[in-house]
């Protein structure tokens, strides 16, 4: 197995990194390129940029951000938000992103997963699954997608997904730890790598998640502070989690 991965997640709106509680009260916390590069220097294994702006121009903005990130950051990154077609995905990959993440668009039209995998390669296709209990949620977790989590995870794998980004909506923002049981159940029904998301409050939570999942998505725990990532890496190492050596 490759080393467990630590993946800072940056929410982007209109070309800026923002922070907010459940998509409200968004606060500007910096430039995606500067923050991404700083996380890379602090030892991030990959980055995820999630465009949460719902404007019609979101797609153009996303390609612009992906291009600027690729010019300045030399570690892999995933781009999510507003990707609804092979053309949308191809544009951000050609700009230099390594993977795209799809969520509601895949739930609305599951064939999209297969189309992306066939045209862009399975390794480039991340399906983000927002789970509330056993149920999948869509549209930023505001709607019931009328699917069971395990059934959807298996379908994503069959259709050609290369990775699953699993967020526990129940834990998201609570800082009470990742939903390990959910992660274990999904891990047992697919052979895809799994990225754990939602609930990280301290290093022990991240360590516990990395014993089940292949990677941990880090959002609010980092407080948009690359120095926090560096200290988290040290704490994880002390907890027996092998982290990538400083470059």
């Amino acid at each position, binding site marked *: *197995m*490759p*080393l*467990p*991965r630590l993946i800072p997640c940056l929410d982007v709106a209109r070309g800026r990194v923002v922070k907010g509680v459940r998509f409200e009260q968004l606060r500007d916390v910096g430039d995606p390129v500067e923050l991404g590069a700083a996380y*890379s220097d602090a030892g991030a*294994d990959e980055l995820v940029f999630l465009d949460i702006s719902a404007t019609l121009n979101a797609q153009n903005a996303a390609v612009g951000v992906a291009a600027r990130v*690729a*010019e300045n950051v*030399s*570690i*892999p990154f995933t781009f999510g938000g507003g990707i609804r077609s092979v053309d949308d995905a191809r544009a951000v*990959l*050609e*700009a*230099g992103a*390594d993977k795209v993440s799809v969520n509601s668009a895949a739930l609305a039209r599951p064939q999209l997963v297969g189309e992306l995998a*066939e*045209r*862009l*390669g*399975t*390794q*480039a296709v991340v399906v983000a699954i927002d789970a509330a209990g056993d149920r999948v949620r869509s549209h930023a977790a505001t709607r019931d997608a009328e699917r069971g989590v395990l059934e959807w995870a298996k379908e994503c794998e069959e259709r050609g997904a*290369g*990775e699953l980004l699993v967020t526990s909506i129940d834990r998201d923002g609570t800082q009470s730890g990742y939903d390990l049981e959910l992660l274990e159940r999904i891990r047992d029904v697919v*052979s*895809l*790598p799994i990225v754990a998301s939602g609930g990280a409050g301290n290093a022990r939570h991240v360590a516990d998640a990395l014993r089940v999942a*292949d*990677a941990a998505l880090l959002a609010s725990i980092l407080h948009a502070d690359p120095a926090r990532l560096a200290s988290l890496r040290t704490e994880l190492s002390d907890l027996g989690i092998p982290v*990538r*050596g400083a*470059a």
Partner: protein
Amino acid sequence: MRFAICSYGAGNTRSVQLAFERLGLRADVVDDGDEILAADLAVLPGVGSAGSAMAGLRQRGLDEALRERATAERPILGICLGLQLALDKTEEDGGVEGLGLVPGRAVRLQTTRVPRIGWAPLDGGGETYWYAHSFVAETPAATATSEGLTAIVEHGSFTGVQFHPEKSGPVGARFLAARCLFLA
């Protein structure tokens, strides 16, 4: 020095070009066989599936250009799928004939998680690079492994890497600088 990155509809050419730019080296993204032949170093990047990638190479006549380069012992660097395409064949997409620059074949990974995505060190205490692949080369030309899997292949004037040096941070940049300046 001229670096040419093969463009054939299946490569992350921009990422590779940017990695060269960060080293202060200019690399052109080209889809013309003559330009591939004229370069000091030809780079064959690759992400995606083998079947469509080989079709893309053939369609542009780049398969012949790369074979001609190999015969003339001019350096080629294959990255990820670019390494696997250089083999005789790959199991992917129901079986695809490769370029035949390197003896061997690509077989599906039998690891617990596929695709194999993430950072892993070379065996024997080597550097740690980033990988993203579902198939792996079985070849007598392997010169380095990672977790027992082929990581570097060297055969004649062809060098192939299963990892992505262009996405492996400063460690990857050092690899590219050392190998490419040496090869070209």
